[in-house]
């Protein structure tokens, strides 16, 4: 079996536009819909199962709004026991399951399938334990990212990963996507900050990995779960480490005449042994859009703007602000301002944080991309994007997590103009393929989902992907959890498990022995 099935749009040579093809719905499941819903209601009573079109509409899409699909039904469990029973039922009856947190995925990770239940984890919204002495918080997966920080900030602590959707996105979704944010060069991604999970397998079996201690002491299953995009299990509890909020944070706002010079400044700061808490770059179009929107005094005569934030003990921050300023001055910056108050620091960030809605003001729609490159390739990638912009007739603004090479090009388009969405998507694909070509990757923090699924072969060959899918087989041999995401082709586990080496067939290799 291979998937996508029956896809004419995937014919060889069709490089301009690929329609997204999802797995063929299981007809028998669709036919049994009423019975399945009745059975699920017996497990999750009352309002826990939603099956009317009008009530399911809010779940038809996630943050990748170009794709919409109503699910078979929406199931909203509130206990681990219910999740276990729901998954065991789906496993026994061959029903597919799409897990969902807050639905903020930008890669379509929570896109429903016609024949799959959508398992919404929103009712798991309690914080279970706050332990300041051991510096951990244990929360249910539906607690928001910011909700964890809010629960501990009275004692001066916070949860470090801060994706831009942190007000809405859930910690369970963060685990699924291995979410990042502007501070992850210094403080790590979700995977570096999660210490344990309780998780339910598709069989309904409940397992615990990690806890309040560090490392696994053996195989790092937790490391595999984080970032698995809901394909391996459903997380029902998460333990994270919390950190003391730095004593001081100050930022430097630096304008450069070219993005090359700004990129050189980033490299020089790191080469000087400084790891800033955050280091963001914006290009001219993004600067102009942000300044027009929030009016915080960004220089408009520069080609690239850097925000470099140093955080930590006061003496260290002041020392490093001086060093960063020296480096920037030495590289011919056009403007240089170091924040002298918290208000000024927040103003530096206000434009960057509003960059997406700011671009939304100057264009009817925008498509946010997410690739990572070796930073030294930035000039080549930026000039490539200028060429693509001309080719597709669409403008592109760039915001960039400069410290870790994570690009977020925003492609401007108008969905009401025929063909523009398709052109924007093709433009986006070309950007990601260029990222891979220069030694980078398809996604730095948004995930593969459905969005980048069909580009996976640009990074991984068949053997690479087969090894990843064998991991999937160990967790979910029937492929019921979130099918159609991450992998361009789903192979049967029996086929992946077959060995092609026969007894006595391979001669002993001619290699040195001692």
């Amino acid at each position, binding site marked *: 079996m291979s998937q996508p099935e029956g896809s004419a749009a995937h014919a060889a040579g069709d490089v301009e536009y690929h329609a997204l093809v999802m797995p063929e719905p299981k007809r028998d499941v669709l036919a049994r819909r009423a019975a399945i819903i009745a059975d699920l209601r017996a497990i999750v009573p009352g309002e826990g199962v939603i099956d009317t079109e009008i009530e399911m509409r809010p779940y038809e899409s996630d943050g990748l709004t170009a794709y919409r699909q109503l699910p078979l039904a929406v199931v909203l469990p509130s206990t681990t026991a219910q999740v276990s029973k729901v998954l065991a039922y789906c496993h026994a009856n061959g029903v597919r399951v799409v897990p969902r947190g807050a639905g903020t995925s930008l890669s379509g990770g929570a896109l429903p399938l016609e024949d799959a239940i959508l398992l919404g984890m929103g009712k798991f919204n309690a914080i279970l334990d706050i332990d300041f002495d051991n510096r951990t918080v244990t929360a249910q997966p539906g607690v928001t990212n910011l909700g964890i920080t809010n629960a501990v900030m009275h004692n001066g602590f916070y949860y470090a990963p801060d994706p831009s959707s942190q007000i809405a996105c859930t910690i369970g979704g963060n685990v699924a996507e291995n979410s990042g944010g502007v501070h992850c060069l210094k403080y790590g991604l979700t995977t570096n900050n999660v210490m344990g999970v309780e998780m339910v397998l598709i069989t309904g079996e409940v397992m615990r990995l990690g806890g309040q201690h560090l490392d696994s002491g053996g195989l*790092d299953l937790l490391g595999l779960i984080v*970032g698995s995009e809901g394909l391996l299990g459903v997380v029902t509890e998460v333990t994270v480490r919390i950190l003391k909020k730095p004593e001081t944070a100050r930022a430097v706002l630096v304008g450069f005449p070219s993005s090359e010079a700004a990129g050189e400044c980033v490299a020089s700061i790191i080469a000087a042994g400084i790891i800033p808490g955050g280091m963001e770059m914006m290009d001219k179009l993004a600067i102009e859009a942000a300044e027009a929107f929030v009016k915080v005094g960004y220089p408009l005569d520069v080609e690239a703007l850097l925000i470099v934030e140093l955080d930590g003990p006061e003496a260290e921050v002041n020392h490093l602000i001086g060093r960063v300023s020296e480096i920037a001055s030495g590289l011919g910056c056009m403007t240089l301002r170091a924040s002298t108050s918290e208000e000024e620091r927040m103003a530096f960030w206000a434009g960057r944080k509003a960059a997406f809605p700011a671009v939304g003001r100057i264009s009817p729609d925008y498509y946010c991309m997410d690739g990572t490159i070796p930073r030294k390739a930035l000039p080549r990638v930026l000039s490539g994007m200028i060429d693509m912009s001309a080719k597709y007739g669409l403008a592109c603004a760039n915001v960039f997590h400069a410290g870790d090479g994570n690009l977020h090009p925003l492609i401007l388009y108008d969905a009401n103009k025929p063909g523009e969405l398709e052109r924007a998507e093709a433009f986006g694909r070309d950007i990601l393929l260029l990222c891979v070509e220069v030694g980078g990757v398809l996604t730095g923090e948004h995930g593969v989902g459905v969005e980048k699924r069909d580009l996976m072969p640009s990074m991984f060959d068949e*053997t*690479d*992907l087969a*090894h990843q899918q064998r991991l999937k087989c160990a967790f979910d041999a029937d492929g019921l959890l979130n099918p159609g995401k991450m992998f361009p082709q789903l192979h049967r586990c029996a086929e*992946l498990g077959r060995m092609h080496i026969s007894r006595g067939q391979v001669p*002993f290799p001619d290699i040195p022995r001692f």
Partner: protein
Amino acid sequence: MTPPTTADRLRARDEADVVETVRWAVSEGRTLDVAGSGSKQALGRHIQTDATLDLSALTGVSLYEPAELVLSAKAGTPVAEIEALLVASNQMMAFEPMDYGPLLGRPRGEGTLGGLMATNLAGPRRPSAGAARDHALGLRAVSGRGEAFKAGGRVVKNVTGYDLPRGLSGSYGTLAAFTELTIKVLPRPETLETLLIYGLDDATAAKAMSAAVGSFYDVSGAAHVPFGVTGHIPALALAGSSVTALRLEGVPPSIRHRREKLEGLLAGFGTLGRLEAESSAALWRALRDVEPFAGDHKRAVWRVSTAPMKASAIGVAVAEAGGACFYDWAGGLIWIEMPDADPRAELVRGVLAAVGGPQSGGHATLIRADAATRAALEVFQPLDPVTGALVKRMKDGFDPSRVLSPGRMYAGV
């Protein structure tokens, strides 16, 4: 060629040799012990295989770009070579990988990059900077199916596909033989200092360490050495009491500021002292490499990871049984030396389970014991039935013929 014998070390020259060797083993129903330099052969369950797949000839740093914070090297590259290269650019492996040499009665500096990742090494900086797993970016490897594959990438932020570079860390060669690894590297702090607190009991030390690492002052190492164990560490030998050590790293003005603040914060706990950079470096290396327990290699040694505030209960139980211990990771890591070769596994695992309550209390790994003991006992924390079955299914996927170091971690895996 004649078939190899048990004593043979099959020294692969490149990835193609690794592929051919594994394919041959699958075809002939043979088993291979996956090894680099062999410096950690005494870790894990004791197993006997038909031959050793020796990766120590796969050497060389293939990519090092300091400004990109990334380094790639063949799996057999000596860790010491990588560290020397990084020092020249004022960088480091921030996870501060320990050297098992002293503890296992071998020379220092033998370990390879592949072994470092296969055993997920860490050091005193673990709570703030992570372990090897946290710095794994990409890999090339050969699975037990005799197929070479890659995963991850060479950039520091990447979520493309399952996180196999992290997932295969700590797999002790049982799922795949690494051939090349890419890791994140970071700037090396300019200098360091250590603040000492004398005379705390284990439980009070845990509170002091919690206050220190939960402060603004970026403590990058927090260890407690009970009196008696102090005698085995030159920098602490004359203390005359237990010593709680807190490390500060960074630029000099920052260290001075933080030390003064910490002294104020911790003055109520006990008498304070201080170590300058050079003796600090020696102290943290001794703690990292468990030098206090390097003297008598017949004694059983455990490595226990738990919640920091739960650790002292384990230390007390060990002391009652005549054992010795010291604490790293602000209490979260306990190194235990038993008075003799008997590991007393029921005691260690029992008290760990008791402090954990309904959750797992952490994990206890028997690090040093004779081969017979390591063949008979569970060396790694025993897995619950659901996890155990899952791990077997992973082995089925990656090494269905049970060719790669079978049984090294768990029976049947």
